[in-house]
């Protein structure tokens, strides 16, 4: 998933550089959402924060 996030960021920057595309914020936000999912999966809430989900 981290690779996918980085690929999304690469696509957004290449299209910004090549076509000055206005929509490049979309893949950036998608990469951040993927990052959020990775983050939530990485945190062991029950042991590190004392929260049982």
């Amino acid at each position, binding site marked *: *998933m*981290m*690779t*996918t*996030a*980085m*690929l999304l*960021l*690469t696509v*957004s*920057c*290449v299209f*910004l*550089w090549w076509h*000055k595309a*206005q929509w*490049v*914020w979309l893949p*950036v*936000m998608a*990469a*951040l959402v993927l*990052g*959020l999912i*990775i*983050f939530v999966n*990485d*945190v*062991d809430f*029950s*042991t*590190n924060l*004392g929260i049982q989900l």
Partner: protein
Amino acid sequence: MREGFLSPELERVLNLLGMLGIVGVILGSYVYQFSYRELPCTLCLLQRVAMIGVAVGAAMNVMIGPDTRHYGVCLVSSVFGIAIAFRQSLLHMNPFFDKKTGQPTLEATSNPPFGQEVFGLNLYIWSVIIFTVVFLAIGLVQLIRDPSSWPAREPAWLSRLASLGVGLLAIVIASQAVLVFMECGFGDCPNDGGWNWWIFRSSTGS
């Protein structure tokens, strides 16, 4: 009526400098990664994602022109980055907490810092500082910018410089994507801080 004293040209130059600063930070992290043979952990890579998000927002300001939507990309990315960096800092700030048992401990060596220090601070502490500075800088720019004075023709030197800078950013992000693929593949990334590349694990069959 002028709303602020920061002209769009100056705004683009400042965004370009900020973007190049982030390119420098990412290249600096490569130096540490390869010289100390330490692969970045999941939280470290997430901070790079956030940092690249900030850089792409700044690049939008540089290439397309300053706009509140482009600053929005920077803001959302910097808030995400602060959350990740703060989480990692807190994990390593409390040495009397055993991550394995989830209990307090009297052993101060249970949760050592991750990675090397730069000027006396770990990279995740620097990350908190950088994202906070980005957040504050965007707020200050919103106060003093003058969006009404957008020029009909942009200076040619600025366009050339912008294209060069964003091209460099694209190369750095693409190299980061290749490195992340080599480290993690399409699965979870290793968190052991060693030289544990996925691509070499999978090629040796282990």
